[in-house]
């Protein structure tokens, strides 16, 4: 079942560009939303049917798209125009997902700084204010604590707001609202109120943005009960996770990455929604399981190329769901390979990797042949100097060295 996703997809998307700041292409792609509603897919990697809870959304849940991440075609003679789907950048994929959901449900609205007239600081909401009006795409003053609280209050009253933090680090100002009111209200009210918000924004270490603008908030939010956290890494899963997050009745925090907004990929024309709690099999393998998410996925895939040349066969899983972990997919992989390497961008102390290590040890200890290795960022504020910043995060040579050590 792990072979359904063609793992080559993400790797080969990168082979054409060596760095992450890909040149901005503004392709004129065919995007006709009116056609898209005809069919509706939910993709699960194990091929299982979705249960009746999903059918009420009106999808034909038994239809699966197996080659959804098809970038390198199996048909070498195919030209760009005849390939299925359309190409776009990650921020455009987010916008597409957002726009489709706003079209579908009038209660969906966007709240954030510079989202309306400016079009979004990363252009995710560009054009939406002109289309839907100032109330649905709301420009807020710079007051994270209160506009997050406002979004949550609006959600209690029936709306489905998407709260954008211009940078995830700014949401620390709204921590009280996110923790107490967003995460816990469903519980403390005995189930009376649901908070279907999506809190999204770019985070992670960028290009010399400085310490305060390079924060990884997934480690701070992971203990909050009642929320779900997902991290997107490709245009395909960005759109799918955005749509899933908006449709979910739980509060979802969607972590994007500053450096991934210009990734280009071909995504299907048909409407699709991904599973929020599921991990993505990027590259199936036999020797070692590498668990990663967000930008580190690309460092891992780069290291994977080197590793393949050296004769190793790593299995790369993009965990995507940071809370709760998809222990099902992860467990199956561990059962196969018996070695785990976690590569993350969080800091060493108290990060996602630390929790994942604990979870795996607790659940799958018997299957492990070697201790779990966790490569994380250093426990330092991100420095400004480029060389120092480079060594704050995990680099591909370190990943290669770790795998070699693990597989001895």
């Amino acid at each position, binding site marked *: 079942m792990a072979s359904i996703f063609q793992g080559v997809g993400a790797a080969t998307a990168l082979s054409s560009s060596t760095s992450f700041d890909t040149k901005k292409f503004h392709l004129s792609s065919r995007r006709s939303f009116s056609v898209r509603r005809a069919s509706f897919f939910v993709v699960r990697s194990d091929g299982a049917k979705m249960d009746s*809870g999903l059918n009420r959304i009106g999808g034909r849940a038994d239809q699966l798209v197996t080659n959804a991440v098809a970038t390198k075609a199996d048909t070498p003679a195919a030209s760009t125009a005849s390939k299925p789907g359309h190409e776009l950048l990650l921020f455009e994929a987010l916008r597409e997902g957002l726009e489709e959901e706003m079209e579908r449900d009038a209660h969906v609205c966007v709240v954030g700084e510079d989202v309306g007239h400016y079009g979004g600081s990363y252009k995710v909401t560009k054009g939406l204010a002109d289309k839907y009006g100032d109330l649905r795409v709301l420009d807020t003053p710079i007051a994270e604590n209160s506009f997050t609280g406002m979004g949550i209050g609006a959600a209690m009253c029936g709306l489905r707001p998407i709260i954008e933090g211009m940078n995830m680090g700014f949401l620390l100002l709204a921590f009280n609202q996110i923790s107490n009111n967003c995460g816990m209200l469903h519980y403390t009210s005995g189930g009376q109120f649901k908070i279907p918000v999506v809190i999204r924004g770019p985070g992670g270490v960028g290009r010399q943005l400085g310490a305060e603008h390079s924060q990884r908030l997934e480690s701070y939010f992971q203990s909050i009960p009642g929320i779900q956290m997902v991290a997107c890494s490709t245009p395909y899963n960005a759109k799918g996770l955005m749509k899933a997050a908006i449709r979910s009745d739980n509060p979802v925090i969607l972590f994007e990455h500053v450096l991934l907004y210009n990734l280009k990929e071909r995504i299907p024309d048909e409407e699709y929604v991904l599973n929020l709690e599921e991990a993505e099999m990027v590259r199936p393998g036999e020797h070692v399981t590498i668990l990663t998410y967000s930008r580190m996925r690309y460092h891992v895939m780069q290291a994977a190329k080197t590793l393949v040349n050296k004769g190793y066969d790593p299995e790369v899983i993009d965990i995507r769901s940071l809370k709760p972990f998809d222990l099902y997919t992860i467990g199956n992989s561990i059962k196969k390979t018996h070695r785990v390497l976690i590569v993350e961008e969080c800091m060493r102390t108290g990060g996602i990797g630390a929790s994942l290590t604990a979870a795996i040890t607790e659940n799958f200890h018997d299957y492990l042949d070697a201790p779990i290795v966790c490569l994380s960022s250093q426990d330092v504020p991100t420095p400004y100097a480029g060389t120092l910043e480079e060594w704050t995060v995990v680099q591909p040579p370190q990943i290669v060295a770790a795998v070699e050590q693990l597989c001895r």
Partner: protein
Amino acid sequence: TLLSFVLSAALLQHPPLHQTYRFDLSIGHKTADDMALARRSSNLLKPLSTASSSSFLNRRPFSTDDSTTITVETSVPFTGHNCEPPSRSIDTTPKELMTFFTDMALMRRMEIAADSLYKSKLIRGFCHLYDGQEAVSIGMEAAITKKDCIITAYRDHCIFLGRGGTLLESFSELMGRQAGCSRGKGGSMHFYKKDACFFGGHGIVGAQVPLGCGLAFAQKYRKEDHVTFTMYGDGAANQGQLFEALNMAALWDLPAILVCENNHYGMGTAEWRAAKSPAYYKRGDYVPGLKVDGMDAFAVKQACKFAKEHALKNGPIILEMDTYRYHGHSMSDPGSTYRTRDEISGVRQERDPIERIRKLILAHDIATEKELKDIEKLARKEVDEAIAKAKESPMPDDPELFTNVYRKGFGVESFGTDRKEVRATLP
């Protein structure tokens, strides 16, 4: 005695915080018609002989007289900031007077009972009591509908009752039982009632104000003709998020009414020690404000009616309710270390909201002294019955620990490290 005088003088180091209000019972002199009316109405006012199982609040054995209008004047005129204050004269009916009295007596009795339940360790944790401030809840409810939203902080028991919550739900929640309004999982600070648009119940000071503006935003988004009353205290008035939320509410003309229940003490600190400018109704600057005597249910009613009309047309407005709490901040606070007992008893004698209504009722001959005492006895009985019933309600079952963390949506079972009982099963 001299000793207590000296003590109180020593403790009273600060200037008086409030003026004494006089009761202004402007009523006409009695005519023959009045006497006849009084006689007729007193025939209707037979005390209840038997207790029935229906809720006290639904029984109106007394004057159902809705037609006679009585004009009442508030004790002090309203003070406006950037707005024309409404008139001091309010029309009411005997029925409304009796309703006010009955409801407030019930609220008062509930809070006193909660006090003794806390002391007998049936209520644990934090318990913030509202006695003394009942007029705010009662007056507000009289001016609005159940579709208007109310959100408040942790002193929420009586507001929950005013919104239509039952005594059983209150006491069960306080004692952590299943029959509670939040299934026992919220506690004193987390009362909610969704069908009556009561949004709680929040423990963190000031955090409910942005939520309240969010409710108003949703109301405006859906073009409803309703308003949101966002309540907070004089302590929360110094929170930054309040001003942030106020700015946004004013920017987008949201139908939000910010109600500052100024009981002059933010936890253990008096308002003059915490705020440079304790004129909370003026703090909105560009947002109009109104200062109201919060111990006068009719003043509150008039102010809320005025505020609702204003908010639907012009956007946010601040109401400052000048009120007082007899208990300390919470049950762990004796309430006498930062204020004198004389002050508390002084307010109780001169400004008590229930006494005010009682005097009005007696002055207008709507009921006799004995009948009012019977109402209070009935309230006590009702509360005792509710407590007994709440004690019978069981504690939540163990699996309830894990319910309502997430809402089941999207048809997917969430699994993973959060659900400790569930481990991943491998094929």
